[in-house]
Each structure stands twice: as C-alpha cells, then as structure tokens.
C-alpha cells in the first residue's frame, strides 16, 4: 500500500479534502477494517484522511436525544454509565466485537460506513430508529440509518461526505433493549447471526406499544424485521407473541450459506434469538419496574 496521509483539523477541512480527492481518497477512523482491506489490496486509496484531529467527533452527548460522534469507540460505548439501563443493547453490541485491542480503536462511524451485513452495533442503532448526519460540500443532512444502508459495503454517503454522528431519542419508561449474537466462538468472531430488539410497554405493562427488531448477517444489509415488529404492536408481552415474532422474522430474513453457517441454520437462529431477545427486553422492563 502506498498513499499520502492527511490530518484535517476541522470538519470543513475534512470535507474540502474529501471532495477534492473524490474516489482517490478514503477517510480513516479506527482503521480496523480499512487498513486490513488496504493491506489485502482490496482498496488502494491514494489519499488517506485521518479524522482524529477533527474536534468533537469522539463525543457522546445525552439530552433527550443521544448523539454519538462518528469516532466514538466501542470501548466508550461499553463503558458508558448511561448505557447500562434501557440502552443496554449498546453495551452488549459493543462488547462482543473483536478483543479489547480492536474495541479500543474501532469506531461506531466506521461500523456504520463499512456497511457490513454482519455489523454488530448497527442492528442496535436500527432498533433505536437512529438517524445519521453526513456533512458534505453542500452542508449537513440527516437521514434515517435504515435508508442509509443500501447494500453490502454500500451506503447513501456521497463522495466527500463525512459521517459526522448518529443520534436517536432517549427511550421512554417501560422500555428495554437487548442484543444477542451467535458466533462460532465467543471472541474475535464475525456474527453468524445477531439480533437487536427494543420493546416499549404501556403504563400497565400489559401491551406492547412499540417493538423494534433488527437483524445482522441475515440479509445483504442489516435490516429491520418489520412484519415481526407490526405483529407485536398492541399484543400482550407473552411468550406466544415473542415466538410468533421470531417466526415472522425468520420468514422475512434472506440469509446466505457460507463458511460460517447455512442459510437454513441462520433462519433457525433468527427465529430463536428474536424470541429470546424480546423475552429479555420484557424481563428487563419488569426488573426495572420492581
């Protein structure tokens, strides 16, 4: 690999450089994927633009909305005290990635922009109805994460645009999240399937007001299992409802067979993990109420 290295010191400068270099340039965040891909010769940018000196990109702010700067590391998510409660899936999604060495540098923005179908933190963000902010030559634009992920390795990010942050609304009371990952072993493994779930119950705790189910490694992109989500609306949070959601999600997914698992096994995992993740959400809501 051979390239020129740049360190823009403001977002405006990063955008300017990104636009000037076009397809010859790549933004560098944690580098846990980009540097590996460059060494394998799969991508050969002539200009690498490190975003580390751009102020504010590694910040987490919480005020009704949670904003994660693009350079927030998995380590920072794992350890954030405010994510131990209703947003627990953020911790659970972050702590299963790589080893400490990778989590200390790998970023949320990198995980999103990389657009791996098997991304771990992205399903969690999808389950939170997250929105991304991209800053480009024409200014900033916000778009739903859901529409941002276009295909394997492909996003709606335009040339020269920097993914600046991702944000989502704080969860109301009687809400919980859960993340489950199936891998061939516990650490350092790409997901065979992963599932993020979010549940909000009514005041009495007897009906599902809102449910979100997002899947990884079960289709060409991480995606929301919408038929399963719809089936839960207004239902009592009971085993039968969660089991049915699992079946619907399994019917909705489009997994492939590869070295890690067969498509049939992946669909089976989706069914079981969706059920389990929803049950876990319900347990957590009950646990927080008692």
């Amino acid at each position: 690999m051979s390239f020129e290295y740049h360190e823009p010191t403001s977002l405006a400068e990063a955008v300017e450089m990104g636009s000037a270099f076009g397809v010859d340039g790549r933004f560098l965040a944690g580098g846990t994927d980009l540097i590996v891909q460059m060494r394998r010769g799969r991508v050969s940018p002539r200009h690498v633009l490190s975003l580390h000196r751009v102020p504010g990109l590694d910040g987490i702010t919480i005020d009704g909305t949670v904003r994660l700067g693009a350079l927030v590391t998995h380590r920072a998510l794992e350890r954030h005290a405010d994510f131990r409660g209703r947003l627990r899936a953020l911790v659970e999604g972050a702590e299963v990635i790589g080893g400490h060495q990778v989590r200390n540098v790998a970023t949320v923005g990198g995980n999103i922009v990389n657009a791996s179908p098997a991304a771990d933190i992205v399903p969690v963000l999808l389950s939170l109805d997250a929105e991304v902010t991209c800053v480009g030559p024409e200014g900033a634009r916000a778009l739903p994460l859901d529409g941002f992920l276009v295909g394997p390795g492909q996003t709606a990010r335009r040339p020269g645009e920097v993914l600046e942050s991702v944000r989502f609304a704080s969860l109301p009371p009687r809400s919980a999240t859960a993340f489950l990952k199936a891998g061939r072993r516990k650490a350092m493994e790409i997901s065979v399937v992963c599932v993020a779930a979010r549940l909000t119950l009514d005041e009495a705790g007897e009906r599902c007001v809102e449910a979100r189910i997002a899947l990884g490694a079960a289709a060409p992109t991480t995606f929301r299992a919408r038929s399963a989500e719809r089936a839960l609306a207004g239902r009592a949070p009971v085993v039968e409802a969660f089991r049915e959601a699992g079946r619907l999600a399994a019917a909705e997914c489009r997994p492939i067979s590869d070295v890690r698992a067969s498509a049939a096994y992946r669909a089976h995992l989706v069914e079981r993990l969706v059920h389990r993740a929803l049950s876990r959400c319900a347990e957590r809501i009950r646990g927080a109420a008692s």
Partner: protein
Amino acid sequence: MKIALELTINGERHEVTADPQRSLLDVLRFDLGLTGTKENCLEAECGVCTVLLDDRAVNACILLAAQCQGRRVLTIEGLARDGERHPLQQAFIDHGAVQCGYCIPAMILSAKAYLDEHPGPTEAEVREALAGNLCRCTGYQKITEAVLAAARVMRGER
C-alpha cells in the same frame, strides 16, 4: 512524502521519519529495533503485536505510525523497572506460562492494561480480557493462573 513523527516509547522520546503507510509495528521493529513486539497475522486477529498506546491495548499492526504522533507507547521492553521484572513477567515465569513464547509479550501487555483498570478480576474476566490474544501452545490455563497470581502481587497480597 515521508512524515516526521515524535513518539514517546517506553518513557523515551523518539523522532522518527516514516513513510505514511508504515504501521506502528513497522516503526517499532524495523526502525527502532524493538523486536519484542511480534509480527504475525497483520490483520488484528492474533494479537501478538499488542502494545499499549496511552495505556490502552492496541494492535500495532493495523495502526498507522502517523496516527500515533505525540502519543505514548509501551512495549514489552519497557515493562521491567530498573532491571526488576514486572509482577506479570515474574508470574509468567513462576507458573510455567510460557512455551514457545511468541504470544507472550503481547499477552503480558494485554494483561497489564486490564489489571491496571481491574485489580481484582475473576478467572473468567481474565480469560475475557485476553480474548484478543491467541496462544497455540499453552491452552491458556497457565497463562490465566499467572495473571491471577500477578494480580494478587500487584494488590500487595503476595
């Protein structure tokens, strides 16, 4: 175009001029001759290149040296103080935790980063802390025992 870097490595300031594509691992091993940090998979899978960057364990193989400008790096060569082994080094020797030895410098540095933040880990926590470091000889049992023993020493329980 080469880049001029200033790095603090094992407490000493170094000025290095490197091509932008050079990794921190390249600079440590080939420019500075610090070969205690090993090279293997070059894809952040095996962990043998682990060093501490501002006290945090990182894979030096996928970190550009340029990204480390102005930062502190600790390698295995910097762990002993005044000729005295770090408790982790001593515990690895005492517990027979070393076989071929290739993974050990990184194993010790990962353990150090973890113990510095978590002085009283359980066995399961030690195993999790070392999940990013592969060893193909030992089966990890003696490594885990050595880390737990070192933790006791570091807590002053000896």
